[in-house]
């Protein structure tokens, strides 16, 4: 059974009226049929809010926070709802603040390569706004055409090109925040080297559990002179995964290095027609960027490694259109899989790059043991696995087995030196797996940091921390989440 939280009481009419007074009646949703959409995100979890509100200013966000505090109602921030770990779901009900209408690019500073944006700005829109000046915003999750920068900040989102350029935190220099008591504050600085603790570094990736982000200062990168996209085609998966390990070991640093296994790429090809060879066991999509001389040398080095690991063929995209088509195939892959199974569960384990071959063999064994087809389409260059378990959520047994198989894979990632999540976040998807990595002492310190900013768990309760491990004492509200969470 999918995670559905039923232990919530409806919001009091007074709260709804208070919200309407702050933002206007047209920007508050509270009827059950209007709230349905907001009980989902990109994950397999569910959690319905008591009301959804669309503020347009930081002041309104602050007022909503104060109202929520007065009535002891939790608050959940949400961007476009594309997250994959349930981070933007109302696990214990409450008020959901959707930032869709705080979507203005406030400033572009070309000289210093900075932009100041509201949290609801769509990731791709920022790149579009600055590409004329030869700049771009580097984090590029697959959902970049719909996900928001506020959501990227909350989850510390990644994407294919983070291999060379880093995840969201590497591109954020300052934040404006609203704390649970409604206080508005600023951390970091435009230059990114503020005196004191790196508070911006703490808040990025805190999954909306410490504060709500209402303004973001980001760094912009300059586009490279030369970009080459290679498609390396393999007749066996081991050859592809060993190629990735070898590229890393030889310290060749592509801008992106993605892997699709044969089964997945056939599903994608059927839908996107990106030009992936239907009879291959795996392909690597490798992008090299930099000065023309540098890229030429790297292309030769990558071709050599591919050859040593028995690549059948290495194609180099001949022009931008061909390159874009290959990327379209990669970025829309998850959507393509939706055509062949009612639901899919996208995992997000991360492992040392030197261990990719053994990890892929393990995933295959798990698939056989649990009788699931598990596809692999992932950021191979930084060891960020995305096994995709296809299942039918209407069959409770299948759902349970999918969750068990997934947990086994994540456990294995940790066993071989990896981590629970590379870019999707912990949310309510992996919070119970956190003890695989962290000790009680680790949780105690994280709890103290949590309580330093969000002492009543007013923000995004029931996320990150395991609820059934004594960390339930984190707040009474998280205890409520334990009761509400399905077993």
């Amino acid at each position, binding site marked *: 059974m999918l995670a559905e939280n039923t232990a919530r009481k409806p919001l009091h009419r007074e709260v709804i009226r208070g919200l309407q007074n702050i933002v206007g009646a047209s920007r508050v949703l509270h009827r059950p049929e209007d709230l349905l959409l907001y009980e989902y995100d990109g994950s397999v979890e569910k959690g319905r809010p008591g009301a959804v509100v669309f503020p347009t200013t930081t002041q309104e966000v602050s007022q909503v926070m104060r109202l929520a505090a007065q009535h002891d109602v939790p608050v959940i921030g949400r961007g476009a709802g594309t997250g994959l770990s349930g981070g933007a779901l109302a696990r214990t009900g409450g008020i959901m603040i959707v930032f869709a209408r705080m979507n203005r690019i406030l400033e572009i500073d070309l*000289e210093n390569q900075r932009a100041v944006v509201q949290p609801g700005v769509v990731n791709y829109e920022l790149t579009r706004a600055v590409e004329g000046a030869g700049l771009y915003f580097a984090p590029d999750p697959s959902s970049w055409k719909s996900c928001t920068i506020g959501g990227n900040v909350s989850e510390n989102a990644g994407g294919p090109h983070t291999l060379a350029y880093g995840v969201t935190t590497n591109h954020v220099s300052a934040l404006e925040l609203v704390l649970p008591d409604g206080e508005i504050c600023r951390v970091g600085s435009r230059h990114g080297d503020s005196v004191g603790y790196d508070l911006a570094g*703490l808040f990025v990736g805190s999954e909306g559990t410490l504060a709500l982000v209402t303004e973001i200062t980001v760094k912009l990168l300059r586009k490279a002179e030369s970009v080459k996209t290679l498609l390396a085609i393999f007749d066996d998966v081991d050859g592809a995964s060993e190629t990735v390990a070898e590229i890393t*070991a030889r310290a060749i640093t592509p801008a992106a290095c993605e892997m699709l296994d044969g089964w997945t790429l056939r599903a994608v090809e059927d839908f996107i027609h990106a030009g992936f060879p239907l009879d291959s066991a795996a392909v690597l999509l490798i992008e090299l960027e930099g000065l023309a001389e540098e890229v030429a040398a790297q292309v030769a080095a990558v071709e050599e490694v591919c050859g040593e690991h028995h690549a059948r063929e290495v194609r180099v995209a001949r022009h931008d259109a061909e390159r874009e088509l290959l990327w379209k195939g990669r970025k829309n892959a998850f959507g393509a899989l939706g055509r062949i199974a009612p639901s899919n569960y996208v995992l997000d384990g991360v492992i040392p790059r030197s261990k990719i071959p053994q990890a892929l063999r393990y995933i295959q064994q798990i698939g056989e043991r649990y009788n699931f087809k598990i596809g692999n389409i992932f950021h191979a260059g930084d060891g960020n696995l995305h096994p995709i378990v296809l299942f039918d959520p209407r069959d409770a047994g299948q759902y349970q087995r999918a969750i068990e198989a997934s947990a086994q894979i994540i456990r294995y990632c940790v066993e071989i030196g990896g981590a629970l999540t590379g870019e999707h976040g912990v949310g309510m998807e992996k919070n119970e797996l956190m003890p695989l990595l962290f000790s009680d002492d680790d949780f105690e310190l994280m709890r*103290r940091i949590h309580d330093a900013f969000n002492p009543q768990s007013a923000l995004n309760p029931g996320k990150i921390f395991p609820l059934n491990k004594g960390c339930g004492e984190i707040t009474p509200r998280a205890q409520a989440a334990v009761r509400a969470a399905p077993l």
Partner: protein
Amino acid sequence: MNTTATNVAARLQPVIGAAHVDGSSESCAKFAVDDVAPSAVARPTSPAEVVEIVRFSKSEKLALIPCGNGTKLGIGMPPARYDIALDMTGLNQIAYYDPGDLTLSVDAGMSLTQLAEALAQQKQLVPLAVPFFEECTVGGTIASNIGSSLRPVYGSARDFLLGAEFVNGAGTCTKSGGRVVKNVTGYDLHKLLIGSLGTLGAITRLNFRTFPLPEGYGHVVGTFSSVVSIVRFQAMVSKSLLAPSSFDILDPEAARTVAKFKDNRDSALPSWFTPGEWHVCVGFEGAETILRRYSSELVQYAQKCGASNYHLQDESDDKALRSALRELVNLLSWSGPAATIFQINTLPGFTPDVPALSGLAARFLIPSYIFSNSSGPLYFALQPDDLNDKTIGSLAHIASGVFEYVAARNGSASILFCPTPLKHVVNTWGPARNDAVLMRRVKNAFDPENVFAQGRFVAGI
């Protein structure tokens, strides 16, 4: 010394063993911070011993300062209390290194040079090209967050520190992050340790991403008679397709110091040094074809922007120049009895305002140096001849002028090194900050009983 601090060494000995505790006044003096010496030096060799020391300090209400090789203990305010120096150099091994994954886990007390040597065997590096490189530890480098001259191409520590283990003020050994290059599991607490100056805990281990050693290096040094020309040059390079590994701007006096540093080795001023001129040193790395392209384009840009002269470094000169640029902060911090160095964090747009800083010092007839380090901080160094009350008064006036001038231009300034008496009249961290309340919350979460580095940090933390 009050009674609680009396015989600290004797009481600490049963906790971690007599061999790990030193109460001699000579040893304690070596760990003095701003003329305040501890009562004992504790020398743990494992995280478990660090835990015991912290628990002991907590229960006895003593104050600790974690130390590496002590090269940057001068940063920050004088300690409000200081009983035990926690000498972390006994934790000094590489715990894990997977060259094939380009990841590393190293004890905080290992020296940067030892680490660099171990990595060089695999043709890799951790890009911490920092002042005091020859003497400092990995942990001290991270805790002080002192600027690395390789920043433009590799980023700063927050970009390649993957995780950390540390003993917090509650006396527990905790961790954050991991050893993989991409990881969003849990709060990024290790980022808070960067630049925390030992106020949040004792770092025991650090996990880094490593990088391949470049095939070769090069520098173009351009000399300019005005900052206006440098601004044009900087903008032209920034808008070009080139991605230099360093971009250092030196005023005439700073350039002379760099030239002298080389002089120590080669007994001759380098040919590129031109008295009275501003110098811009642009570093780059890569294969031979790349080095050639950088040289040729940078020279063109320098000429277009009115450089009076330019010079290409050959391979052997380049190594010396890189070391000199890396060590300039170190050199100037020892340059006189009252040497004072400001670190100014700004964006490239600040460059036109740079000469005004010298004006602030000139009013008090104090010689000054200005240099910016690789698109990161700008350093403003003062070198008064004597240390006396008048000098301290002048330095205090200049400090207040610098803080005000920089704040008005959306930057932030702090004093990196200065004589201790100045710290009694000026807060080295600059004016009060709006986020001080949030910082205190972080401090309280990590160190609820204020065991670590009392009073040394921002906002009295």
